[in-house]
């Protein structure tokens, strides 16, 4: 998703990790984690794509696999073993488990391994942070994103709705678009006026929210956490 729609976010991820003292590369043969098909019920198709990425990641000698998207990280760590099990490949399921052990979501990694000092941020910047569901409820990453954002000098909005689903949900946003948009609206309407931007760690949620904000003519920048940390 980042590659297609937002290479700038990918570049920010690379710079943020480098600033923290790490070498970064993208394995050539990694494609997609397969989540869109998996969530739509197409396990065979999901496994076919996931296998390609899994083999590329398994062959890579990196210490850690940093995934700058909570739902992709959850797909790999939580659902790959099950995906290969239900499609009848126990060996791949075991490989998936060991690959998953090396996977960390970006903010989870930075919260543990942040080395570089915070960049200077504008005094009046206030971030409304959107917790994506898979990060929050599958990976149980609750405090890391806000911790790294506030360490970088940003104020965080008091936005309880930040923990509620934005309504994206993969093909859900296509199949029930009216509900999907209504869910986005409820979140958007609850964003405090003091917020100067909306941030999150899942590009798919962010594009959905950004697209709804734009449709309603609300001028609120939407950024990936990596972009905040890269300023």
């Amino acid at each position, binding site marked *: 998703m980042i590659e297609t729609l937002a290479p700038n976010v990918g570049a920010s991820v690379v710079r943020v990790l480098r600033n923290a003292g790490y070498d970064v590369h993208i394995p050539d043969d990694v494609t997609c984690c397969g989540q869109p098909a998996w969530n739509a019920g197409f396990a065979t198709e*999901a496994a076919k794509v996931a296998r390609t990425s899994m083999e590329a990641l398994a062959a890579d000698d990196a210490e850690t696999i940093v995934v700058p998207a909570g739902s992709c990280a959850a797909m790999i760590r939580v659902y790959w073993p099950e995906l290969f099990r239900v499609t009848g490949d126990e060996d791949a399921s075991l490989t998936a488990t060991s690959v998953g052990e090396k996977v960390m979501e970006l903010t989870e990694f930075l919260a543990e391994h942040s080395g570089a000092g915070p960049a200077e941020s504008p005094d009046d910047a206030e971030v409304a942070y959107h917790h994506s569901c898979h990060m929050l409820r599958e990976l149980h990453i609750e405090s890391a994103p806000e911790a790294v954002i506030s360490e970088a000098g940003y104020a965080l909005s008091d936005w309880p709705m930040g923990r509620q689903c934005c309504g994206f949900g993969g093909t859900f946003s296509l199949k029930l678009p009216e509900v999907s948009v209504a869910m986005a609206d*409820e979140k958007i309407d609850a964003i405090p006026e003091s917020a100067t931007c909306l941030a999150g760690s899942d590009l798919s949620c962010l594009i959905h929210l950004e697209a709804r904000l734009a449709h309603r003519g609300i001028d609120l920048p939407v950024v990936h956490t990596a972009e905040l940390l890269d300023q």
Partner: protein
Amino acid sequence: MTANLRSRTATALGNPGLRKAIRDATDRFTTHREEGLDLANFEELRRAARATRAAIIADLPRILGTFADAAEGVGAEVHWAGDAAEARAIVTGIATAHGVELAVKAKSMLTEEIELNEALETAGIEVVETDLGEWIIQLAGQKPSHIIGPSLHLSKEDVAEIFNRRSDRPLPADPEALCAFARASLREKFLAADIGITGCNFAVAETGTVILVTNEGNGRMVTSLPPVHVVVMGMERIVETWDQLDLMMNLLPRSATGQKLSVYTTQVTGPRRSGETDGPEELHIVIVDNGRSNLLGTEFQEMLNCIRCGACLNVCPVYRQIGGHAYESVYSGPMGAVLTPLLAATGTSLDLAGASTLCGACYDACPVQIPLQDLLLSLRRINADTGGPAWSERAGWKNWARAWSRPGMYRKTVTAARRGSGALPAGLVPKGWRSGRTVPEARGTYDLRKALRDGKI
């Protein structure tokens, strides 16, 4: 089914009054639940409850046998119904054998599931729901929209309008006045009823006891005033021991309404004994399967652990927008989206599994830790495998898998999607996605991998 799921949700979304009522009610339930879960060891209790329910369901035939023996030992008559039609026939048979003219009922989702009221009415029996919420929707000719609050989709103004259709004097939209009207109307029915019909929150096998969890006192009236009491019980609604019941009762009211205990917890152990002054002369317990035993031994067995608290409905961000009626099922929300297709005829209602973003809020709220999002995913796989999705969707995923399982093809499609435009190519963004959303500008149009390789980042 009158319309497809999408148009049903759109209808619900077009009703601002409905949406407000649902939001207010589910917020209230959730706030109370959060306050009620003042248990330091809640997570521990959830784990224990999951294990306990799983052990019971795994041993269901034996425990049901123990229950039936114990219940008959204290004078109840136990009936077994394989499906809804059998259950309706049994209850209607009991009623007609006693020449029943008026039946009063306490709230029971199972009797909604088997459409018992309609069967009794066809047999010429007047049926009166006595739970306030159920009575309201009975008068309105509607179905429940929530398993705990069947009429939570209605405002007090709606209720006043419904009541005013049968009140001699006009009633204001004031909860106290409306309740007083309901109380006076229902009291006559309790006293005149020939039979009382209830559901069953839990049956305790070791003593043959039926437990009812209620808040309005109507349950007590239904179980004690009429000469005949019929319990309609789902076959999974059982615990073996009172210790197990204790664990479940710690979780059920708290998860449902945030109460430490509901106002009434009624225990029914057999009919009136000699020397007792009240209670029914006859107690019938109808144990209903209606598709439940099909789940035993399958990946969906855990759904039988459900204790019907409604917490998953209250926290579901999809239910919150559309309410229960859009599901077109007695059971709505996440538990309904799972249970409905499982209990229904094979291959029907599977589209309900799509009424979720798989956000997982339901699992977090579930007091018996049913992995609802995983079960929804399993149902989506069954739906895909049995030809549910349109041909175009199936072909689309096949093509997608063919392309993206090959790194070279993957890179080509990514480049094609990016090329030549600052905005997302409209053709890549399906129409459904563009309705209500304005696709934003892409954030950069360069090849990320190449830039990284070339040292440009």
